[in-house]
């Protein structure tokens, strides 16, 4: 599918190496079993927004597929499908690390352990973390290596919005979005 999120596994088995550039959405929860909806909402939203600029590969176990599809349905309801696609890849963590990640142009993950990998390889990386106070934080690494200007800007904007919105309260001044 050229645009929109690929929601079936069967049509999504193309080798990533021939589809460069691509990004990887790597979430340990979907590689280990059945994830919680709350774990998926933010990473899937971020991947969808970025997928307007770059195709994604999303490795997951079959047991996670149903909940992933439900969450995607909820996120995408009523939105324009501006996406180069998010392709499910049925593989485990090790396959993902050896096959997908090394050739990717961007890695989006909630696995803080991958921060070290990014630092070693200089791979552009967005790490979504849940902090002790239940807020979310997105850390970007090697952003300058993202060559596509639109993707870089979108990534920076999304990260900043998430961090400001989630990280605390706007206590004074002016805020243009009155929700």
């Amino acid at each position, binding site marked *: 599918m050229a645009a929109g999120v690929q929601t079936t596994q069967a049509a999504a088995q193309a080798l990533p190496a021939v589809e460069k550039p691509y990004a990887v959405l790597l979430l340990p929860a979907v590689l280990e079993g059945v994830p919680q909806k709350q774990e998926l909402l933010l990473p899937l939203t971020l991947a969808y927004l970025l997928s307007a600029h770059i195709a994604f590969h999303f490795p997951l176990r079959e047991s996670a597929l149903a909940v992933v599809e439900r969450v995607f349905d909820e996120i995408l309801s009523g939105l324009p499908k501006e996406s180069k696609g998010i392709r499910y890849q049925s593989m485990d963590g090790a396959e993902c690390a050896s096959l997908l990640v090394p050739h990717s142009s961007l890695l989006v993950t909630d696995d803080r352990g991958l921060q070290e990998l990014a630092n070693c390889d200089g791979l552009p990386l967005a790490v979504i973390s849940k902090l002790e106070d239940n807020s979310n934080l997105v850390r970007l690494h090697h952003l300058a290596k993202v060559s596509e200007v639109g993707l870089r800007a979108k990534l920076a904007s999304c990260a900043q919005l998430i961090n400001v919105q989630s990280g605390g*309260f706007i206590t004074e001044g002016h805020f243009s979005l009155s929700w």
Partner: protein
Amino acid sequence: MRLYILGINGYHGDASAAIVHNGKLIAAAEEERFNRQKHCAGFPSLAIRYCLEAAGITAAELDHVGISRDPSAHLHKKILFSITRLSGLSGLIAARLANAAKVRNLREELARAVDVPAESFRAQFHNVEHHKAHMASCFLVSGFDKAAILSIDGFGDFISTMWGCGEGNRIEVLGEIEYPHSVGIVYTATSQYLGFPKYGDEGKVMGLAPYGKPRFLEQFRDIVRTERDGGFKLNLDYFLHHSEGVEMSWDDGSPTIGRIFSDKFIETFGPARTNGLSLASHYEDIAASLQTRLEEVGFHILKHLYEQTGSKRLALAGGVAFNSVMNGKILLHTPFEEVYVQPAAGDAGTALGVCYWIENVLLQRPRNFIMGHAYTGPEYKNGQIERVVRSSGLKHRLLEDAELTRTAAQAIADGKIVGWFQGRMEFGPRALGNRSIVVDPRRSEMKEILNARIKKREPFRPFAPSILEERVAEYFEQTHPAPSMLMVYQIKPEKRAAIPAVTHVDGSGRLQTVSRQSNALYYELIREFDRITGVPVVLNTSFNEDEPIVCTPDQAMDCFQRTRMDVLFLGNYMVER
């Protein structure tokens, strides 16, 4: 086990704090009463200090602290909305957020407020989603074991309306309406268009509506479109908030909101009324149309909610729940038979909701408190009041309780404007007989006299009656209790001439039903007035002059001396000029 919970509404209009000990509400108050900035939207430092003092504990002894906002709630929707709807602006938004907003977390802010290191807190900190706090604030203190719940306001945590079912310690959310769709926003936008731009001005438009005819109802039906699932959607062509954002600023003071209505509003209804221009019937008709549509949409949601829950009891909260005209018609237009509206139904009340969400829902401790009145603020003993009275240099005398109410009732019956400052300050926007100005409702000229001498309000705005609870049926078409002055009922036609100063142009009155149980002294005052006049009703308006309602005896004395009030009953002291 001893358990203290502090609830906070901060960084929203009407910042406030509440404290609960073992399930009992110890204190609750708005920040504006202490810092004297109307609808203050900063952090409620002074209200928190008051709550801790009232509970007799330090912040270090708190077990739980919660705030009625959860930045993580619906976060993905906020991000999606920003990036996909405000196309081309995402970079700008991010830059503005970074440059203009100061962001702090709750623990640090509380530490600053009470001047202790954050490390000294043993409490667990919680974020409670805005509308869940509203729902908790009405249902969990309503005394209803099971009820339908509706929370409806402008916005909070990306949601404008949330409904559900409460049973025991459980609150189940059955539906919600997301940004940018909000009837609260429609009311605010139309109020702006009508020349009432200040935060909280929506009540003025509600008061204006009975002067007009709803001849623009079809246009408002186009602006707010009801849906089959009980919800509604806005025709966004009429608004700016979804496309350009709306600037809201407060800088630790009163909030101000940028223009929400679009040029489509002007194309449809003509030029907006600028503040100060006279209110032509055209604008009154727009107000009437807005109010009628709000009621239609409100009843649409409520009928659906009744079908979902099957409960004939309703707990109601959120800023739109201050629309007492709509509230008063709920029993007439929906299947509900009992309605509980918490006195601080707006955002201030979410501080209370946070406490009970933590106490009853999170901790699953038993419900053991019913909020039967709003008197949860500071109180002052006669010893403290004596200092204020003496330093004023005014003529004064100390009265026994019985003499106090008799003397005050006689002064009211004699046509005097009476300041009535007693007991604990009210929580919520209404003065309910403890921080009130009380006058004779039988005198039609009283409305003009009050406005000329003290209140300076727009002449179209009505004044409200307080009535002995057991006498309501004599004067009003409906008798469901309204202890928080959040219901408007029709006054019986044959009684309107008896209480003209509190009868609105359409024959309605926003009544406060007063029982001995909820406020014995105020009840006695009205009873004395009834003994003298045969009318069990007084006109009750808030003790203030274009400022937050007075909190302390000093503020009351200052207001008394500044205005042309005739006599002040400050505790048991009677003060005259």
